[in-house]
């Protein structure tokens, strides 16, 4: 009698839907194809993708095209890309760009830092935060970032862009060839050298002696 009672109690304890869910979950884990699940995630992300990335390319050239709603849409998309991929350098890079235009410089720097940690060989992940630091008056940090940017190999930038699923739509929009990407990086390299020197010079000056540099004020972070 007692045994029966104990048996019933044990059965009652395990007769919970959560146990059934757990068993279904375990069964699903064993029969499911993990690669297929990843493919499904990518398919779902594709549907979330904004119709065009042209705006991001355009605003990089002309910041007066500022549209907060549009920028927030892109932020949302790249955040989701990171959520479901566990964080990607290209997504962080694009987030950095969006946050910069949204004037959320701290988040922009954070995003570029994460991108650079993952892919230190990509020129723009150092150059862009360098520029932001410079504009913020944090010249020491700016100088360090420009220095890191100069240490990268321009060819890596081209390889990274051509392999990134997030950059490809941007390049398609502009029908930009690899050579143009390379030319852009090489041109920025020259700017970067000057900016690095300028950063260290400004850092060496006393605060009251520092003067705004209009040429730098006009520069904005770039995608490629």
């Amino acid at each position, binding site marked *: 009698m007692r045994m029966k009672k104990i048996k019933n109690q044990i059965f*009652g304890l395990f*007769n*919970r*839907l*959560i146990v*059934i*869910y757990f068993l*279904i979950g375990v069964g*699903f884990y064993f*029969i*499911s*194809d993990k690669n*297929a*699940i990843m*493919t*499904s*995630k990518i*398919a*779902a992300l594709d*549907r*979330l993708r904004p119709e065009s990335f042209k705006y991001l390319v355009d605003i990089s050239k002309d910041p007066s095209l500022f549209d907060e709603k549009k920028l927030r849409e892109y932020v*949302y998309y790249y*955040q*989701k890309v990171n959520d*479901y991929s566990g964080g990607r350098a290209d997504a962080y890079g694009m987030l950095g760009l969006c946050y910069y235009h949204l004037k959320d410089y701290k988040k922009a720097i954070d995003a570029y830092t994460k991108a650079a940690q993952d892919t230190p060989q990509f020129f723009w992940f150092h150059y862009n935060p360098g520029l932001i630091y410079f504009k913020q008056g944090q010249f020491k940090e700016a100088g360090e970032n420009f220095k890191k940017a100069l240490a990268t190999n321009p060819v890596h930038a081209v390889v990274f862009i051509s392999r990134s699923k997030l950059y490809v739509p941007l390049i398609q929009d502009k029908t930009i060839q690899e050579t143009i990407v390379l030319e852009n990086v090489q041109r920025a390299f020259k700017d970067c050298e000057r900016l690095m020197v300028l950063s260290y010079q400004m850092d060496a000056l006393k605060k009251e002696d520092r003067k705004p540099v209009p040429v730098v004020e006009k520069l904005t972070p770039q995608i490629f």
Partner: protein
Amino acid sequence: MITSFILLAFALWMYVFKGYVMGELSLISDGAAYYDHFKFFVDYFSRGIYPLWDATYYHGLPIEFFLRRIGSFNPFILLIMLFNKIGLAHFQSYILFLNIYYLTGMAGFCLLANRLLGHKMTAFVAVVLLSFSSFSTTVFDSYLIFTYVPMIWFFYFLIAFSQQPQRHFFLGMTFTAMLLFTTYILSTFFVFYLAFYPRAFKRISFQYWAFFKNNKIFVILCLLALAVSLIPGVLFFKEAGSGEIMMPSRSGVYTMSTENVMKVDRIHILRWAILEELIFSSYFLDNLRKLEPAVFYIPFFGIIIFCVGAWAVGLNKKLGLFLSWGTLLFLIGLPTTTPIFKFFDQYVFFFKYIRNLHFILWMIILPILVLFLAEQLRVFLSYSPRSRKEKAGLFIFLVLIHAGLAFFVSSFTTPIPSTYVTIVLSLLFFTLYFAGWLRPAFMLALLFLVITIEPFQAYGYFVQNVPHKRGDYLNRTKYNKFVFGLPRGPVDPLPPVFYFSMSWYAFLLQNFDLAVLGDYLSNKVILYDKVERLDPKNVDIDKIEKNFKEQQNIAFVPDSYPADQLAGSEGALPEKSQLIGNDSKEVGLISFGVNHVKFKADLPSRKFFVYNDNFHSNWEAFVDGKKVDLWRTNLSFKGLWVPAGEHVVYFRYGKDWQYALNFSLLAIFYFIFARLIWLSFKSRRHANEKN
């Protein structure tokens, strides 16, 4: 009292989506395409014409496929005509029809839930949960409503008939099955029903048999009606294998083929199914401000029930039935993730014809999930704590669950306030319920509030996010007009992935210079003096293109054309064909309709009369009332010989038996529907008198 709250829920639902009725919001995706199909059908049907052909869709197309999609025999379509008659615009009439049809489905679901759960309050919870889930948004962006409404009612009649074998339930089953033939859904249900209720199944079988024996003629008539209702579908299926029509975006076959075009290209099935739909929807759950169509959503109270039930409810037969049935359908809907779909695809023939596996999620799994949750709620609410200790334990459990959920919601990107309000109200509801302090009216009001408050806010965002501009969608308002001369210029090419076209017309568009083709098609009628046979398997595109460009006086007919009838008029023939304009003296229009066109011709000599509307084997031609041979001409169009002198040339789409069949089916559907309503009222009156 429950009925009042259900009506209140329906009223609230209509209020939330009032923007559609007011014409401020736009139907999208399949919702817009179906609007167009309905408009086309209703425009003609209201004039007593059953349309079978659409001359404006890629230069002519049989519309049986569209008619099967909208369910042209459904008596509810009469509502659109009724609203039109009382002066409402077509768009408003259509949206009102959709609203009423949806709410009819929800009323059916309420009755079904009541029968299945045997508990009115949880049936109420089920219907409000489902009404305010994303099930409702499918009304405006898809065509699922035309399947799930009859399906819900079918299951209601099935369950009701199994419990009480009465004629009106059997008739209801027949009628809804006539509207619907979704065998894979039904068969999986029967398998699990048999597994969980073997004894009940035996009892029900005897019950059915007894009913059949006592109502032989009635049952035979119902089965006959069911069999007749399958004829249009079977005929269309046969036509889909004839090679005359092409549906590349469905079949993946872009060239002419005799393979059945209803067969679905694997890519469509594999690319987007249930898992993709759920992952996509998960992006929106933490920010309902972005809620949009095609996002799977259930009111937060459903999640609360799920969490409470997971810990506090054990498996019973009903839960087992819902869970196993739903899980199997879910696994079937994962074609790439698990091997289950592959098995069905290999061994069950009709899986080749199912295109959108993710629809299973919306049409079947979502209602099953709601029933599953409602049953959990019923079981949970049936718990009666006896001691203070039990009561305290229950309260702590509820607080922990609700607090955990509040913490979970706080981790969302942008939670909406009503989600927190739902959690608070839910805790209040359960606490008051188990304390025994809830009076029925207050309990229903609280339940109503706890379920609807979050969707009310979420759908507020939804209506902001959907397109606001309403247009004429496919812009086909001129389909009842005929002109001989159309504007010259390049013809619109088929999009890279097009849905539906005549096969030979697609061939023309894919292979010919579109400017040349556009100029050729700018003339609806062309007269020729000579015809030439061509081998359809080896088409000389350059030769025909040159013929079109230079307006040569030769029309091309298939090689089945008799060799001794190739020559037209004798003597010297003009070099160019004769293009017929609006002011032609030789050919004039007598009448034009959706299924026919009639010309008067006054020709100086025998001419080959080409009407540049697509050929289909169901077209027939008559000269002065006498049937003549009609040929597929210039690859895709219609042509026939017309003798010299004054004649009436009449083209008609569809055989007599097709019209007879369609009108008979309409009569059968309407009769059965009327009879069903009559028997239901009679049965209700009888039950009331008995009580």
